[in-house]
């Protein structure tokens, strides 16, 4: 029954297709089959979002510790890049932080909005970035920075299986966040 419910849920996921929008011209963004995805290439100023909305402004946008935003040149809208171009659970702030305060051009996908969160704007996945007039760079810097910070976490498998903070949390609270004993009950019931 549970598996039937899961299949029904997956089938109920909205039909997805890359669509053009107001900022799609010239975009070379690759489709990720996201909800209401829309290719978007635009110029923008890179900002520290906490500074931008609340006026809490450290040097260098927090030097990579904070979420970064894009104030789009065409309309002044604050766009929130939640994701970089790597398909492995990695955000965009690490890729954008080196451009703090600079004008850049970005290319990627807008996703979300009314289908998921009524009344909400879309968020952004940045796939490539360049300073105005410069060379494009892929937004894939995150794993290199993680490897520098975690030299002892070498081994097989992707970073998220080896990250010491995550393995510590799983050891303490289990994969469900309910404790290791609840994991055992779940595994025996589900698998």
């Amino acid at each position, binding site marked *: 029954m549970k598996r039937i419910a899961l299949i029904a849920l*997956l089938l109920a996921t909205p039909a997805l297709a890359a669509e053009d929008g107001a900022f799609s011209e010239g975009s070379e963004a690759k489709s990720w089959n996201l909800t209401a995805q829309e290719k978007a290439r635009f110029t923008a100023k890179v900002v520290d*979002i906490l500074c931008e909305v609340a006026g809490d402004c450290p040097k260098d946008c927090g030097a990579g510790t904070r979420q970064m935003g894009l104030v789009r040149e065409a309309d002044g809208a604050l766009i929130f890049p939640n994701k970089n171009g790597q398909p492995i*659970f990695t955000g965009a702030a*690490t890729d954008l932080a080196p451009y703090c305060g600079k004008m850049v051009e970005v290319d990627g996908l807008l996703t979300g909005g009314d289908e998921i969160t*009524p*009344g909400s704007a879309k*968020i952004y996945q940045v796939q490539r970035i360049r300073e105005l007039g410069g060379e494009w760079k892929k937004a894939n810097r995150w794993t290199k920075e993680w490897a520098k910070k975690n030299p002892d976490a070498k081994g097989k498998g992707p970073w998220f299986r080896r990250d010491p903070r995550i393995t510590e949390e799983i050891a303490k609270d289990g994969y469900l966040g309910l404790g290791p004993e609840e994991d055992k009950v779940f595994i025996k019931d589900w698998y």
Partner: protein
Amino acid sequence: MLGLKRVLALGVALLPGIAVASEGERIAVKGELIDTWCYFSGVMGGPDAVVGSAHHTCAMWCAAGGIPVGLLGEDGTVYMVLKLGEDDDSNGGDTFLTMTNDTIEAEGMLYERDGLNYLVVAEVTSNEGVTNLTHEDFGVTPGNTIPDAVVDKVLEE
């Protein structure tokens, strides 16, 4: 009629590239700390499957990876959390990682900008831990969250 502050803020906000802090509103809100990318993008399925215990490990991966953590309010509103108490390391910081999927009550400042809600949490006034037991309906999302070796070991016990 618009107040003078709002007229001035609107005028400045219309100038591209000019940073201007928004006028915030003090609020108290209860909800679950979620992985905003999977919730908005649908990349792992519908929104009910990417919250709570079913998605807890994936949400930790995303929080550690610097994907923004949001607070999903009881009315379905999503607040992008920029600061949790004293911790403004919203790009993968420890506080954001360790509270993933917890149901909390928080007080702080709300800023609305271009269709998104941004929350600066001043204080977490209660924390119930993970209470949204979505694994009972969805298993784990993604399906390979728990490694085969772990599953096999438990089944052999």
